[in-house]
């Protein structure tokens, strides 16, 4: 069965079983490997992408449920890798192994789109579904604050354009 959706601004059609999770469609069918497999059970957040701007766990999202929807992955967050979160991540040298970071950034992006000035508690509660076994949480928190600041000082909020509105 052919399923159509929009991934990072491009219309795509895939012929896969309707219950195949979006994660594996992205990775194995569409060669978009930025979205990671960590648990397959909505436990770790490594597979986080946006569906129409909201963060979802692509490992438990059947492809059929995103038919006709807009999906944004880490590859589509910013064409140049210069989203304020990516810049802040660079500034604080957040990644260790890096495997969880796409999921962290995507979750943080959805948070900032809703809440331009999150508190520590806001960040912790938004990101508590994203595991980092290397333990980069401290810098993630700092970098989210920094990205929020960068976004507030910019005239337009770049997240508004990628949030799928």
């Amino acid at each position, binding site marked *: 069965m052919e399923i159509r959706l929009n991934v990072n601004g491009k219309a795509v059609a895939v012929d896969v079983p309707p219950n195949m999770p979006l994660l594996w469609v992205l990775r194995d069918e569409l*060669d978009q*490997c930025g979205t*990671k497999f960590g648990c397959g*059970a909505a*436990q770790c957040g490594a597979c986080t992408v946006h569906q129409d701007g909201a963060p979802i766990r692509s490992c438990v999202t059947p492809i059929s449920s995103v038919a006709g929807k807009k999906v944004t992955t880490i590859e589509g967050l910013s064409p140049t890798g210069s989203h304020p979160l990516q810049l802040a991540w660079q500034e604080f040298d957040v990644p260790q*192994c*890096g*495997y969880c970071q796409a999921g962290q950034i995507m979750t943080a992006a959805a948070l900032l789109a809703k809440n331009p000035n999150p508190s520590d508690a806001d960040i912790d509660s938004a990101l508590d579904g994203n595991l*980092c076994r290397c333990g*980069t949480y401290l810098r993630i928190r700092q970098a989210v604050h920094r990205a929020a600041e960068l976004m507030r000082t910019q005239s337009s909020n770049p997240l508004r354009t990628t949030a799928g509105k």
Partner: protein
Amino acid sequence: MSVLVTRQSRRGFLGQMFSAGTLILGAGPLASSAAQSPQPWMPNVFVGIAPNGLVTIIAHRSEMGTGIRTALPMLLAEELEADWKRVKVEQALGNTKYGSQNTDGSCSIRDFVDVIKESGASARLMLERAAAAKWGVPAGEVEARNHEVVHTKSGKKAGFGELVALAAKQPVPKKEELKFKPASAYRYVGKDVPIIDQDDIVAGKGTFGMDARVPGMVYASIERSPVYGGVLKSFDDAAAKQVKGVEGTVVIEGFKPPHNFQALGGVAVIANSTWAAMQGRKKLKVEWDSGKNATFDSAAFKKSLQTTARAPQKVVRNVGNVDAAFSSAAKTIEAEYYVPMLSHAPMEPPVAVADFKDGKVTCWCPTQNPQAVQETVGAALGIKKEDVICHVTLLGGGFGRKSKPDYVAEAALISKKLGKPVKVVWSREDDIRFDFYHTVAAMYMKAGVDQQGKPTAWLQRSVFPSISSTFDASSEYGFDVELGMGLVDTPWAIPNQRAENGPAKNHVRIGWMRAVANIYHAFGVHSFIDELAASAGRDRVEYLLATIGADRKIDFEAEGTKFWNNGQPLDKFPFDTARLRRVIQLAAEKSGWANYKPTKGRALGIAAHRSFLTYVAAVVEVEVDDKGVVRIPRVDLAIDAGQIIHPDRVKAQFEGAAVFGTSIAMMGEITAADGRIQQSNFHNYPVARMNESPMITNVHIVPSNAAHSGVGEPGVPPIAPAITNAIFAATGKRIRELPIKKTKLV
């Protein structure tokens, strides 16, 4: 943070330049631009300089998050006086010509700092001599500076690229001729140069093992015996084959003891996507002959380990006369500690791609040890290890799991049977159930103290199934490495000390996990010293320092103790109690220990431990609320790891260690019933989340001229005892068994 270096994306994982052989990785991001460069000059195995000036530096150790893929090449660039912007880093294939590539044991810097500096300095000297010859001036008058050689007197300059042809004709300098840059001239070392993969990682373009793919590749998901050592009796794959995308099944033979890094064996479902393979596997009907481990029960096993620990065992350290001192002590104190099995759980589960063709196999995998891949896969396929080509991708975490390449052997065996490339993907459930577990350990401790509470005798026993069982199925006792991690090397100035090790058999695969035996030994030792301090009614920092005693280098040989010392000579890496004292004092000072006022449910705890030749003290603040929930507002870590190449990555390793240690302390536990591991994913094998981790971790580095020592692991051991010591101070509850979540705190 000082950013001296322009960020740039420099990938290169395939080693074309040095390995020849073109490798296609589909549309994947593994393509390298090295092939575009003209023939480079290679002064040694670690560096090549092309006529266009591009310097390629080989990263021969694996990147799993420590930053080593940046730090060692950066060090070479430093000594070469290369411009980091004109350097490309390429990941080495597995090859013994680099020396050991086993990225394990916190020793990449320690073991390669000299070799890498020599490689850079030697190439620099050859470039300088080439320029001097070209200009007819004395070699002493020219100097390499920022990717060119200059002759200040005449104002002549030549870029590295221009000098390649001439430099290649220079004799390779002798070691004695090499001059190293003084630290004051460093441009990169000691500065916070971003890791080379950072751009890719934040853009989702980093290539991990999970992302490796080759044209024509199929996917495999493997059903393995739920009991260690179980043998396949029969299976029915009819339903599995009905699943859309499933192409068939392949049987992988079981291992022959000792298991070593062999594939476990099982039934692989082959499909055209990871998902289809996993779905097909769910439909398999498999019968196992579970064998003798089917009765393994971790609760019963715990009791047997504790029973062993209560009786005299093999003596592995003996100073003075502990028994006599116990009889004359004013008081004796006993305690038992227990640390359960743990799983590594790197965020990227084990995964490997293998392509067997014409008697050779090419593997792409996240491995800490490509040479072990060559050996293991070679043995599994019955081919020479040189015919195993191992490409190392980025690792989505390793922690010791990925130095054991059973998963690569699986992919290679399947590829050979199918005659096409295959990717084996472990689910998280596979990862948790088929790990090489960090071993369980039971400890018994006893001390004799005088009237003032000062210890006069110290006895500690440790009982645990040993890692050596991986290589020797009959193994029952700990080996030097494990004994040398906190059992025979307590730093106390106590005149009577004895350490003992009791026997225990393995019922699962046991392997090393970040910090290894230090985890349980540090928990026992540093909890117990805290108990003695409390019993004496003394300040715990003051008591700790007093028990360590006068500054000295512990003379293990004189006392007749066999001490592993990470395989390093004690004259180069002494056990220097002055360094231990300094980190304790620094952590205490930075945490405000002296003036800290504990309140109900809120207090500090301390633990200090030397491991991987590095001295670490941790002061942890805990807050226990009236529901018994523990929070960690702050951790102060003071460390002395000798000289430091990359301070920011060192800090990052210790920040991460505080979280890893928190997982061990608070929540980590693997159990087994009927031989089956009872945990399967993060819902029942939790690891610390953001809101459960230390809110702040400050890392205080002691400036040191001592030899470079480890940083990846030594931050882990003191965390758990510092947390439980803090909980005791905050609540009066002494926790002797991990994880903490098993104890009701209110």
